[in-house]
């Protein structure tokens, strides 16, 4: 599989692109400078670097700090140009062995990092930087500090680390570099491909409609000039006139019928087409979301993913069903009108056509102005909703402190403020439209004035304009407004649609990080031996959460994982089920590297019980067999019995048919926990992971869960994380994890004997327990 390789490349490229586009700093350390630093170090490579973007006068500037295996270099240049050609810049290099500590003084927008040697000597380096450089600088600090503490961290690929760190805040806010609008729209249109016939049909109908609309005014003119006037002048008999009138009326009627038929075809074809494209996008999006690794969901907010699948695709439907074709129709109509008017009478035509660009310009200008006006309104409005979001969830606090009046006042001030701005906005747009209409009326008057002199020429001259032509003109004029308005709205529509398309494509363009090999091994069945071989892991590239963890767990052992929060306990369990891939070392299940194992197949044989279990919308029975739908009812009940859930389920009026989940029956925390235990053990997994399974329930419930757990751990390899050490009393071994390392391991008795961290924790909890028991 070539994917992962190209993927890393594109992420770095993407980060570099973000840096080039959004910042004033280079996307990587200038090659010339890096060469010179490496030359100064005797060709040892730069392992990590960062930019300090403030100088000692607190001006924006560029100072690079580079870290090698044995050295640190600091390169400053006043004019900020490192092309490698100029005079050798001040590169100050010192040995890493001289560093005794790194100290940071954080400020509001500037952090000062001091690299210290012996306390009597001046600082080895003082670096000042804004928050944008903070991650990259913290990487440098981390590696130096780890080295001081005795752990060598070898950073690889400094360009990637630097680009990733600098681009990260921007990527988190936007998550992708905005491509050109045209590219995004083109990509969106490519989804129309499978529906080519419909597209052609819809657009043909729209074109036909537009062209047909141009005919009735001409017919009216013809009717006046060739029927009404000759009849009045006596050159046409009544019978002849009536016959011709009948033809004209019939033609107009036919046109109108055809037009509405066309409209029907257009609306139906394109609405359905748009819905299909939206469905395709949603399907692709949802399927892709399911394929993505766990890391994606920790980076992107749930709400954001939901919006992308639901309302963003809906917006795209709107564009394909209506926006696209209506814009096209408007443009076509404008062109058609222009041609017809100029051909039928170029002088009058010019009166109408010449000011056209001016009108479009005024409209676009107005749209832009309204955008800033509404931006201001939006800001005021968000201040109003902020108060709501603030107080409604905190209502009990408001009431407890008797602050209702003040809250009312706070809301009213902002509400009035927002209203003031909305009214300003209304004043502006209400002024514009009558003004624009007035301009158009002025054109009408101009046409009238101009036409009248030609309709009623001096005596002896033949009129150069007929009444029919004039009437046709007036009718055409009335048709101008609609398309012009449409064009005015186009810019806003395009920007909304491209944003929506952008957000959708962004998810589609994310690649899963954990990918199975081409021919994965299937362990049937898993025995349950779990081996960590010097595993290092970090959720980002430099900070390691696990720093060389090794252990070997026999099938059937129960391991208790103990340690402070953030020490890496949950990370260990995440790695066993391969939610993430290790950075260094390897994990073996039954002697096979997890990266070689079919991950789906593996996960079916691992049961997981989490602190706050999620139940899906459906019956309790469905929830229990969520991972194993083919399970029989007997198996479901068995699992529920083992999990101590059967009794409370039977006590419910709807028994196992009780609907739970968001809109269903609300189970208590302990009940949900027991359902989730039943779910985890239904498939008789060989490995069971219990992540704080009993931490959020009361003592009585804990006892019931504990009882259930003691039954389910029998004969399985179990990894249990717990803060309450009493829940781990059956563990065959305990691992104390601190700061990414296993610092103690052994049985309860051995660890108490050792009198280390575990013993301390145990005594503390014991004392607390006694206190509460009193």
């Amino acid at each position, binding site marked *: 599989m070539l994917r992962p390789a190209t993927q890393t490349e594109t992420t770095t490229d993407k980060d570099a692109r973000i840096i080039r586009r*959004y*910042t*004033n700093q280079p996307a990587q350390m200038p090659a010339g400078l890096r060469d010179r630093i490496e030359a100064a170090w005797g060709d040892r490579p730069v392992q990590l670097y960062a930019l300090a973007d*403030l100088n000692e006068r*607190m*001006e*924006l*500037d560029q100072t690079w700090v580079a870290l090698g295996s044995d050295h640190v270099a600091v390169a400053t240049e006043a004019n900020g140009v490192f092309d490698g050609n100029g005079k050798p810049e001040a590169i100050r290099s010192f040995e890493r062995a001289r560093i*005794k*500590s790194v*100290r940071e*003084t*954080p*400020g*509001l*927008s*500037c952090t*000062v990092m*001091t690299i*210290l040697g012996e*306390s*009597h*000597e*001046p*600082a080895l380096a*003082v670096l000042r930087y*804004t*928050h*944008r450089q*903070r991650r990259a600088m913290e990487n440098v600090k981390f590696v130096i500090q780890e080295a*001081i*503490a*005795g752990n060598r961290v070898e950073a690889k690929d400094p360009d990637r680390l630097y680009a990733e760190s600098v681009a990260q*805040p*921007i990527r*988190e*806010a*936007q*998550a992708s570099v*905005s491509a050109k609008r045209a590219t995004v729209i083109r990509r969106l249109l490519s989804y129309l491909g499978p529906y080519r016939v419909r597209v052609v049909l819809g657009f043909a109908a729209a074109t036909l409609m537009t062209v047909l609309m141009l005919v009735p005014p001409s017919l009216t003119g013809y009717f006046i000039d060739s029927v009404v006037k000759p009849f009045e002048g006596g050159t046409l008999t009544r019978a002849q006139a009536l016959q011709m009138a009948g033809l004209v009326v019939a033609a107009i009627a036919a046109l109108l019928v055809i037009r509405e038929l066309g409209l029907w075809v257009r609306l139906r074809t394109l609405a359905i087409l748009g819905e299909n494209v939206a469905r395709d996008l949603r399907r692709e999006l949802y399927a892709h979301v399911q394929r993505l690794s766990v890391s994606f969901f920790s980076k992107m907010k749930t709400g954001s993913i939901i919006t992308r699948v639901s309302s963003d695709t809906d917006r795209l439907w709107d564009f394909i069903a209506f926006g696209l074709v209506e814009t096209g129709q408007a443009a076509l109509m404008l062109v058609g009108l222009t041609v017809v008017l100029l051909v039928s009478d170029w002088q009058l035509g010019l009166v109408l056509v010449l000011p056209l660009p001016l009108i479009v310009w005024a409209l676009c200008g107005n749209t832009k102005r309204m955008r*800033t*006006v509404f*931006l*201001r309104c939006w*800001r005021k409005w*968000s201040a109003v909703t902020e108060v709501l979001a603030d107080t409604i969830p905190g209502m009990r606090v408001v009431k407890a402190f008797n602050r209702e009046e003040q809250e009312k006042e706070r809301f009213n001030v902002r509400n009035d403020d927002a209203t003031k701005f909305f009214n300003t906005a209304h004043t502006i747009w209400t002024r514009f439209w009558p003004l624009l209409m007035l301009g158009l009326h002025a054109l009408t008057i101009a046409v009238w004035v101009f036409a009248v002199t030609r309709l009623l020429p001096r005596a002896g001259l033949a009129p150069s304009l007929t009444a029919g032509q004039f009437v046709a003109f007036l009718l055409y004029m009335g048709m101008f407004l609609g398309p012009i308005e449409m064009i005015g709205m186009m810019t806003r529509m395009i920007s909304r649609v*491209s*944003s929506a398309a*952008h*957000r959708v494509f962004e998810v589609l363009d994310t690649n899963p990080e954990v990918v199975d090999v081409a021919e994965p091994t299937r362990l049937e069945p898993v025995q349950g031996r779990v081996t960590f071989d010097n595993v290092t892991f970090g959720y980002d590239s430099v900070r390691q959460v696990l720093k060389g963890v090794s252990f070997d767990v026999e099938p059937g052992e129960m391991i208790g994982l103990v340690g402070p929060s953030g020490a890496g306990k949950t990370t260990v369990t995440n790695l066993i089920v391969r939610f993430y891939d290790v950075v260094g070392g390897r994990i073996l299940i039954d002697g096979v590297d997890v990266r070689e194992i079919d991950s789906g197949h593996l996960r079916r044989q691992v049961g997981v019980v989490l602190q706050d279990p999620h139940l899906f919308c459906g019956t309790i029975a469905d929830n229990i067999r969520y991972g194993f739908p083919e399970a029989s009812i007997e198996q479901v009940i068995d699992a529920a019995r083992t999990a101590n859930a059967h009794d409370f389920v039977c006590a419910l009026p709807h028994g196992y048919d009780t609907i739970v989940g968001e809109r269903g029956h609300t189970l208590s925390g302990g009940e949900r926990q027991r359902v989730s235990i039943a779910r985890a053990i239904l498939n008789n997994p060989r490995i069971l992971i219990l992540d704080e399974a009993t931490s959020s329930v009361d003592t009585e419930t804990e006892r019931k869960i504990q009882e259930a757990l003691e039954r389910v751990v029998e004969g399985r390899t179990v990894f249990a994380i717990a803060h309450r050490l009493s829940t781990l009393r059956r563990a065959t071994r305990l691992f104390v994890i*601190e*700061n990414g*390392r296993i*610092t103690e391991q052994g049985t309860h008795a051995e660890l108490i004997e050792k009198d*280390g*961290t575990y013993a301390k924790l145990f005594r503390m909890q014991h004392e607390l327990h006694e206190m509460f028991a009193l």
Partner: protein
Amino acid sequence: MSDMQSATRPEPEADLSTLRLERRADGRIWLTRDGDNDPWYEAAVQAAKQAKNEGQKEGEKKTVDTDSTADGVAVRIAPCFPWSRTRQYISVRTFDGKELVLIPSLDALADETRRLVEAALAEIGFVLEMTRVLEIRTEVEIRNWRVETKQGPCTFQTKLDEWPHPLPDGTFVLRDVAGNLFLIPDPKTLDSQSRKLLWPFVG
């Protein structure tokens, strides 16, 4: 806990004019001894030692203590109210995060120490100060600002729902996606182009 603190810290009414801070060659601020009987210094040394011992993690290599010498303790200055009371309630802390002194008001300090704290506060309170707005462009999910600041030209980004926060003196503070703060002066003092671009965001 409270017993421990009163043991290591002088009484609140103790004379702050004997508190002595100096900037050393390493670029940091150090709390040093003022005369033979300086309660601040004695307390600081004790507190720093205690914090160091508590902070030392088990199983980790003992590192060289770079934050104290025979005649001083390296400290950090942390203002408690960086926006609303810039000259009051300044906390002097060790690099391990232990408070040594809480200065109720800068006026109580000796001249030299006061000037030093003022300079340190200026450094901590550093924010980029806008002098001119060149462009504000709305993109997908992000707003791109191109500005000139007192510190040099700068491009930064904010989220679309991030708005400048008004301050009592008519200026505004804006936070970018990286966490940097930008001070926008009273728009009245800016050129017309900047004012026009800022119009939707301030006032």
